[in-house]
């Protein structure tokens, strides 16, 4: 529905499209799908975001960067709210974001599927090497350089790489 509030929120979305993830700077916060809502209420910009991972230390910085970007663009009355529900999922990452990740050298998340279960020693997902595009890869560790990634290695080109794990 197009309302006055929506129309005046449009420029805000454009500003938010310039705010990037401090840990994966190739992704904007819109690519990540963490901006849930933008509203203009009585001259106040209200931005609602949701964290990717519970323990993601980048969230405080993302919130601050949103505020700075809005201030730079002339907004002063800003309210940023964090909501937990519904919980973020890697399925909310945009297709464009997934392509950018791959070009950056990080394997993008597979669609959320059976692998997100607690069973031990399950068959690993087929993850495509972001460099040589081979599916002949193996997981080295479920936990990688940040909370959102696992560490893989390509059996073809031998390169280790990060996989943005399904969540």
């Amino acid at each position, binding site marked *: 529905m197009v309302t006055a509030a929506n129309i005046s929120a449009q420029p805000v979305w454009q500003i938010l499209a310039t705010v990037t993830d401090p840990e994966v700077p190739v992704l904007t916060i819109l690519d990540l799908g963490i901006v849930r809502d933008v509203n203009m209420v009585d001259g106040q910009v209200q931005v609602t975001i949701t964290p990717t*991972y*519970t*323990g993601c230390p980048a969230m405080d910085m993302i919130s601050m960067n949103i505020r700075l970007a809005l201030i730079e663009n002339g907004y002063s009355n800003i309210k940023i709210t964090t*909501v*937990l529900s519904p919980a973020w999922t890697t399925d909310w990452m945009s297709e464009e974001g997934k392509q950018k990740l791959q070009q950056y050298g990080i394997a993008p998340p597979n669609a959320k599927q059976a692998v997100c279960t*607690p069973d*031990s020693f399950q068959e690993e997902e087929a993850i495509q090497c972001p460099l040589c595009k081979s599916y002949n890869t193996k997981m080295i560790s479920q*936990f990688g350089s940040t909370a959102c990634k696992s560490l893989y290695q390509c059996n073809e080109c031998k390169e280790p790489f990060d996989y943005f794990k399904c969540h």
Partner: protein
Amino acid sequence: MNQNLIDYTLHLADTTLILAQRNSEWCGHGPILEQDIAITNISLDLIGQSRNFYQYAAALINLPITIGTANNPADLATEDSLAYLRTEREFKNLLLVEQPNVDWGQTILRQFYFSVYQLYLFQQLQNCKDEQLAAIATKALKEITYHVRWSSEWVIRLGDGTAESHQRMLAAIEELKNYTGEFFIAAGYETPMGIDFALLKQQWEEKTKAVFEEATLPYPEKTFNQSGGKTGTHTEHLGYILAEMQYLQRTYPGAEW
């Protein structure tokens, strides 16, 4: 003010914070780089959960104050004041999580016991009538799933590994066997939360038994349950953890970087 809800939220916050603090002692000391990163990543997840719980507890505690007129910001509870400025007797964490790391085997077993408990507890909390606790639990379940997988695989790997790793797991089982019963003994503030402790116990035992079997480890026989952590009576270990964790804020109040 709903004191039961505040106490329960603090219990969840303290438990996740203290386990995170314990695990983080491995930072730079893990058996191999990848596992050093794994255990500290789990710490990070747990700190994230504890922050969510502390922030919520602070909001609940401040509720009657913010309605009043004259607010001195220093009087308001914050996630930091709750973590850094409460005493040992005020901490409501489970006794299990304050137990020492000892070696990789005991650290793994402690994490495994806890993650399985957390998995089934949070599945119940997802449907809790308190919306914020439900939201935190729903979100946390995603990472808890990975913690259960990782710690189960390590219990199996060590139990069904070498003679030494098997021996160390036996020692860890002996050391921790009296600290899991507390999971299922409801503290006064837990009763109104509507948790089905019988179901929780049944699910926890089922899963831990299955993994122990695969790990060729004997399932510990229950003789005696240590309890009291949930209401502030701790083993001697918690004081040392808090002394280290709270030192900076106690010595330089309000210090920031």
